[in-house]
C-alpha cells in the first residue's frame, strides 16, 4: 500500500492498527463526528481538592493499559509528567500509553519506564532528547504515534485518541478546578494544548503549585471539566519553561536568508492591510519577522493577526500597531506571557481552534504567510522535521503541517548545508509535511519555488532574487559537501507519522 507521495506502508501495523495511507492534504471526507464524553457529575457537597497525588491515584479509576495525557506548556521545565508516571509505576501499573502534546529532554526518566514496560505507548506531536533516542532504538513496545498539533485535537475530539485521565499542570488553580496559566511561579501564559484534553478525557486532575481561593480568574480551563485538584511543591522550573530559543540571531547567513524570505513575501503581494503572519521561534524565523516588521512599517501596512507560539518580537509588532491581534496557542517567553495577561487583543486559542482540520474552520485556514523550518527537503518539496538524516527522531510536526496546509504562502527558511549535511535530498528520511503544502524554499545560495505555484514564479521573476530549481539547489549543496551515504535502518517500525487528518503519511524505522 502506498501513500500518494509514494511511500510504501503496511496495511496493518502491530500496536497501531489499520493504516489509512495519506492521499492529499484535503482528500478526506468532510462529514465528521465529535465523540461524546463519559463523565462523573459533581454534586454540591463534593470536594475537589485532594491531599496529595496519592489520594488522587486512589480516587481515579486506574488500570493497566490506560492512556494518560499531559500538555507541554511547561516545556523543558516540566515536573508533572515525570512525577505522575513515577507514582503510577510505584503502584505497579503497566502498559500505559502516554499522550503528551510534546516530550522534551527533561522527560528522560520516561526511558526507564519504557524499558521496564510501565510505558508501552507514546502519542506526541514532538519528541526530542533521550526519549526520542530510546524510541528510535526500538525500546518502546508499540510504535510511537506522532501527530500534529491540530491532528492531536482532531484525534481527541473524534475519539481516535481516547484519554482515560488527563493530568493538567496548572500554574494557578482554584479549589473548584478553574485553571489559568498567567499567575504563579510556573506561569506559562496561554494553555492552548491543554483544552481538548480537559474537555474530552474521562477524568481530569489539575496539578498546581499555586492553589488559590475560588475563582482563579482569568479562567482558561473551566471547572466544568476538572474532577480533582492536587497541590504539589513545584510543577516546573521557570528557567526551562521560557526557553532561550527565542533570541534574535546574529548569524550573518541566517540574516541573509531572512532578508531574502522577506523580499519573497513582499514580491508575493501579500503585504497589505489585513494580512496575517506566523513564524516559528527559531533564530532565522524570528529574523524574518524583524525584516517583515521593517517592510510593514515602511509601507504603513496594518495586519490582521500574527499567530502560533508567541514571542517577544511579535508582541512588539502588536504594540507597534503592525497587527491588530495575536492568536496565541502558547507563550514562548516572559514578554508574551505579560502581554497575554494585560492586553485584550492578545487572544488565546486552543490547539483545536489553531489547527484542527475537522472543525468549522481553524485559524491556520486564515493565514496568509507562514515561515517554517526544515531538517530535510526533497525535490518534491516534502519536508522532514521529524528525524535527522541519521534516522533518529529529533522533533516532529508540531504545527508544521497544520500551518503549511492552511497558509496561502508557506516558506521554508533554512541553511542549504548544516554541518556538512546537504538539506535538499531526492528523498527525505521521513515525510512530515507534504510538498503540496510548501510553496518556497529560501536558502543562502538560492530560492526554489514549487513548480505548482506558477503565479508566484511569475511574480518573483520580476525581482532580482536568485531563483533556481530545487534540483539545482540540491546539486549546489552536494558539490560543496559531497553526496551523503544513505543511512540504512532496520525493518521494525518505531513510530507512525500521522498527517493532521489521521491518515498515515510515513513511518519511522528502527536505527541500527
Amino acid at each position, binding site marked *: 500500500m502506498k501513500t500518494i507521495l509514494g511511500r510504501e506502508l503496511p496495511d496493518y501495523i502491530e500496536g497501531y492498527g489499520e493504516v489509512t495511507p495519506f492521499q492529499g492534504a484535503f482528500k478526506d471526507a468532510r462529514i465528521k463526528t465529535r465523540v461524546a464524553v463519559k463523565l462523573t457529575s459533581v454534586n454540591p457537597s463534593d470536594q475537589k481538592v485532594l491531599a496529595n497525588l496519592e489520594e488522587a491515584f486512589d480516587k481515579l479509576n486506574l488500570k493497566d493499559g490506560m492512556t494518560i495525557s499531559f500538555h507541554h506548556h511547561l516545556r523543558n521545565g516540566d515536573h508533572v509528567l515525570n512525577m505522575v508516571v513515577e507514582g503510577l509505576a510505584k503502584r505497579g501499573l503497566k502498559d500505559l500509553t502516554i499522550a503528551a502534546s510534546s516530550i522534551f529532554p527533561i522527560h528522560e526518566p520516561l526511558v526507564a519506564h519504557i524499558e521496564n514496560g510501565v510505558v508501552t505507548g507514546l502519542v506526541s506531536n514532538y519528541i526530542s532528547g533521550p526519549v526520542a533516542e530510546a524510541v528510535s532504538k526500538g525500546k518502546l513496545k508499540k510504535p510511537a504515534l506522532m501527530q500534529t498539533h491540530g491532528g492531536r485535537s482532531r484525534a481527541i475530539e473524534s475519539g481516535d485518541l481516547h484519554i482515560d485521565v488527563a493530568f493538567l499542570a496548572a500554574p494557578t488553580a482554584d479549589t473548584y478546578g478553574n485553571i489559568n496559566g498567567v499567575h504563579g511561579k510556573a506561569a506559562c501564559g496561554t494553555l492552548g494544548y491543554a483544552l481538548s484534553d480537559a474537555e474530552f478525557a474521562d477524568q481530569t486532575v489539575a496539578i498546581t503549585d499555586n492553589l488559590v481561593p475560588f475563582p482563579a480568574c482569568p479562567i482558561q480551563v473551566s471547572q466544568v471539566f476538572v474532577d480533582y485538584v492536587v497541590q504539589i511543591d513545584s510543577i516546573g522550573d521557570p528557567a526551562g519553561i521560557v526557553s532561550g530559543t527565542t533570541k534574535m540571531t546574529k548569524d*550573518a547567513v541566517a*540574516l*541573509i536568508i531572512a532578508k531574502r524570505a522577506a523580499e519573497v513575501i513582499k514580491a508575493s503581494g501579500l503585504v497589505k492591510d489585513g494580512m496575517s503572519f506566523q513564524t516559528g521561534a527559531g533564530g532565522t524565523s524570528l529574523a524574518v519577522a524583524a525584516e517583515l516588521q521593517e517592510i510593514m512599517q515602511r509601507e504603513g501596512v496594518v495586519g490582521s493577526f500574527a499567530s502560533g507560539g508567541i514571542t517577544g518580537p511579535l508582541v512588539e509588532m502588536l504594540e507597534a500597531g503592525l497587527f491588530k491581534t495575536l492568536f496565541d496557542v502558547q507563550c514562548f517567553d516572559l514578554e508574551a506571557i505579560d502581554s497575554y495577561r494585560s492586553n485584550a487583543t492578545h487572544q488565546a486559542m486552543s490547539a483545536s481552534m489553531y489547527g484542527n482540520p475537522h472543525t468549522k474552520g481553524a485559524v491556520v485556514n486564515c493565514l496568509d504567510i507562514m515561515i517554517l523550518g526544515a531538517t530535510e527537503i526533497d525535490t518534491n518539496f516534502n519536508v522532514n522535521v521529524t528525524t535527522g538524516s541519521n534516522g533518529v527522531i529529533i522533533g516532529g510536526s508540531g504545527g508544521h503541517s497544520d500551518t503549511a496546509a492552511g497558509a496561502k504562502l508557506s516558506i521554508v527558511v533554512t541553511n542549504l*548545508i548544516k554541518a556538512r549535511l546537504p538539506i535538499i535530498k531526492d528523498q527525505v528520511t521521513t515525510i512530515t509535511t507534504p510538498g503540496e503544502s510548501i510553496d518556497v524554499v529560501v536558502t543562502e545560495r538560492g530560492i526554489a519555488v514549487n513548480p505548482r505555484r506558477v503565479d508566484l514564479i511569475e511574480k518573483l521573476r520580476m525581482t532580482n532574487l536568485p531563483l533556481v530549481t530545487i534540483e539545482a539547489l540540491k546539486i549546489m549543496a552536494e558539490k560543496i559537501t559531497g553526496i551523503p551515504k544513505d543511512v540504512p535502518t532496520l525493518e521494525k517500525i518505531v513510530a507512525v507519522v500521522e498527517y493532521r487528518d489521521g491518515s498515515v503519511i510515513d513511518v519511522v524505522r528502527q536505527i541500527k
Partner: protein
Amino acid sequence: MQKLRRSMLFMPGNNPGMLQDAAILGADSIILDLEDAVSLSEKDSARILVREAIKTIDYSQVEVVVRVNPLDTDYGALDVEVIARVKPDTLMIPKANEQEIKLVDQMLNQIEIEEGYVPGSIKLIALIETALGLENVYNVIQASKRVVGVLLGAEDLTSDLGIERTKEGQEIFYARNKVANACRALKVDSIDTPFTDTFDCEGLAKDTTKAKSLGLTGKSAINPRQIEIIHSVFAPTEAELKHALRVLDAMEEAKKEGKGVCSLDGKMIDAPIINRANCTVDQCIRLGLISGEDGAR
C-alpha cells in the same frame, strides 16, 4: 568590465565555516585575513586553511583578497610564498611602503613564472596604516603595476600618529584626502577604513557618506551587516542617474545637429560634466540598475 570594489569584507582566516560562506555575504571583495584576526599560535594553520579554501571553494564573482602578515614578521614572506601559489585575485600588504610592495612584486614575478600564471595577474592592495606610508602613498601605488587599490587603515595609522581615534573621524581627514587624491591621480581604487561599531548603522552610513564625499571609492567592512549600507551609499542616487542620462541625451542631440557646444536647462555642458555623467551611467550599468542598452543611447 572592471569589477567594483565598493565593499571589502574582512573574514578571519582560521574559521572554516566563515570561509565557506564568504562568497554569499554580498560583498564585492572578501579579505581572508591572516594578520590581525589570527592569533600567533594559529598562523600556520590559518595559512594552510586559506590556501586549501582558495584551491577548493567556488567564490564565483567575488574578488578574493588575502591579507598576509607584515613582511617584517616571521610570517609575512611565508604567507606570500604559500598563498600566491594558489592564485588569489589579490594580496593585501599591511604596513605598506614602496619597499614592501617592490619586494612582494618580485616574489610574485618568480612564483608566476614557476606556476605558469600570466605575469602580473596577481594584484596588490596596499594597506596604508603608517605615517610614512601615507606620506609616500603616491610612490607606493607606483611601486608595482600590480597595485589596484589602497586601503586606509585608520586604527594603526592613528596609533602611529599617537592620536586618538574617534567615531567622527576628524583625525583622519587629511589621510582620507591624501589617499583619495593619490588613487584618483593614478586611477586605482581607494578603500576607506572600516567602521568599527557594527551595531551603529546610522553612524556607518554617515561615515561612509563622508568618505565618499572626500573621493574614496569604497569602504571596508568587518561585519556582513555593514555591506548593504555601504553599497547603498556608493550607489548613484536615482536623481544622479536621471541627470546623467539627460546630459548624455543632450550631448547626442547636439552632435546630431552639428553643434559644437550643447547646454541643458540653460547651463553649458562641458567635458568634465560629460565625463561625470559617463561615470555615473557606467556604474549604474555595472550595478545592474539599468541595462547596457539603456545607457548606450
